[in-house]
């Protein structure tokens, strides 16, 4: 792969990563499923489960429809104290798998901000991504969120 193609790949994956965190942090959750392919997978787990090869997820979806159900539940059904996230994502390591697929790894911090004004470091971890490149815009085939800690404070409503 020539340098220019490599740069173009990196920019496309970084753009996807940026759009992901901004749509969550700006409370445009309805746009969040659209960043995945139709049968895209999203999974939140802990480093402990991940390293022990245990399959239990904290959140799991294997289609845009399931992601939309999660958003609908957050909007219509689930009750939780008003809160927002602020993501900070490290620069990404991007590796091309084949002509239409790349893999990426990045680190994140999420600060949770409550209406009371309380801010806390809510989650840290890694994003393990598989990205589809054949359409106009890069989309997640899979995003696995591996949390460093096994403990979640109170509840996890908004996606990480």
């Amino acid at each position: 792969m020539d340098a220019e193609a490599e740069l173009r790949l990196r920019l496309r994956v970084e753009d996807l990563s940026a759009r992901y965190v901004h749509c969550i942090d700006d409370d445009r959750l309805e746009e969040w499923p659209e960043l995945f392919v139709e049968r895209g997978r999203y999974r939140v787990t802990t480093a402990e489960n991940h390293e022990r090869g245990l399959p239990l997820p904290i959140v799991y979806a294997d289609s845009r429809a399931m992601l939309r159900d999660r958003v609908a539940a957050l909007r219509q059904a689930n009750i939780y104290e008003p809160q927002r996230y602020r993501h900070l994502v490290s620069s990404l390591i991007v590796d091309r798998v084949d002509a239409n697929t790349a893999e990426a790894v990045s680190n994140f911090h999420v600060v949770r901000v409550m209406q009371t004004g309380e801010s806390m470091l809510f989650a840290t971890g890694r994003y393990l991504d598989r990205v589809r490149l054949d359409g106009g815009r890069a989309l997640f085939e899979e995003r696995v969120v591996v949390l460093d800690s096994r403990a979640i404070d109170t509840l996890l409503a908004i996606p990480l």
Partner: protein
Amino acid sequence: MPRTSPPQRAWPAEGNARVPYWVYQDEEIYAREQALIFRGATWSFVGLDAELPAPGDFKTTFVGDMPVVVARDGGGTLRCFENRCAHRGALICMQARGRAEKEFACVYHNWTYDLAGNLTGVAFRRGIKGQGGMPADAKPERHGPRQLRVEVFCGLVFVTLSAETPSVADTLGPEVAARVRRVMKAPVRVLGGYSQVFPNNWKLYLDNVKDSYHASLLHLFFTKFRINRLEMKGGVIMGAGGGSHVSFNMMRSDPGAGEYERAGMRTAGGDYRLEAPELLDSVDEFGDGVTLQILAAFPNFVLQQIQNSLAVRQILPKGVGRTELVWTAFGFAGDDGAMAERRIRQANLIGPAGFISMEDGAATAFVQRGVQAASDRASFVEMGGRDVASSESRVTETSVRGLWQAYRRHMGL
């Protein structure tokens, strides 16, 4: 300085239908709970037998505030001992889990213990070249960590410090024990775990689990997406002494509209359907039509079947205003691929992000915050009457009253 009178720590005259808010706030009460409940004649749940399959397998956890090691010895028997070195009190084992060869060694001065917690070696006990060492009549073995009784009931591991605690089955009572056997029907496969940390007293979580009245009112997921019916078949089974209970129901999809609104629920407006209803594609694996069973045993154990999502929950107090809830989800060794996938999909229902469980953390913390200035007041628990008895309706707080009945008995309140 205005004088404040010393707090009154007498239970309200109304009995189990009132819960004085100081029980969630008072440091002295917390210390007494540790001594009289967690180190008293109760069984603390510490995990699944299947978590420690081989000799030498161990995990560290807690009995109330007391750190403990649970280990499988060379003969295959589970042992539990206080994680506190006989010498200076350091933790003997600092890993969350692992496999020990034959012994544990305290990192501080390398005193060693067998897998049952017996002191087996004291470094430099005889000194070096006649210098130093312990007196000949020293008896360090007498200072060893406390060893706990272990009972494995249906693959669930319970421990107690007290010689007086009746068997687990007797503590639960026959009807609740039968409901444990119903779920723990075959060899278990651990699917994983995580913890949820609540900014509230441990009893608020146990109280929440025992409150069958809140389920359809706080957790709106099923009603919003029109999955359950208010009057579906179910009930509450009260165990021995009020400390244990089972709440269960049999769900089916709800074709009708309007009944939630008529019952005063705020939830049902709008016509919402899941786009991916396979989330709830369930199999009647226990053959009795029960789609939800929540079973809790005083002071720290919950067993859950929500459709095909199975889990145990261990409640760990972490000070007056903080609680850790340790979730371990499981299936069975004989699960086929479809069932394994179903359990993963339905993991969405439970835990900190669970469609029908995430609200519990918020609600219990709201109580902790709400009662901050009301230690002389009490909550009002009269739904379903004032007694402690089984009920054919889940619109009752009978098992909440059962919890407080058991609590008061142990605490002498």
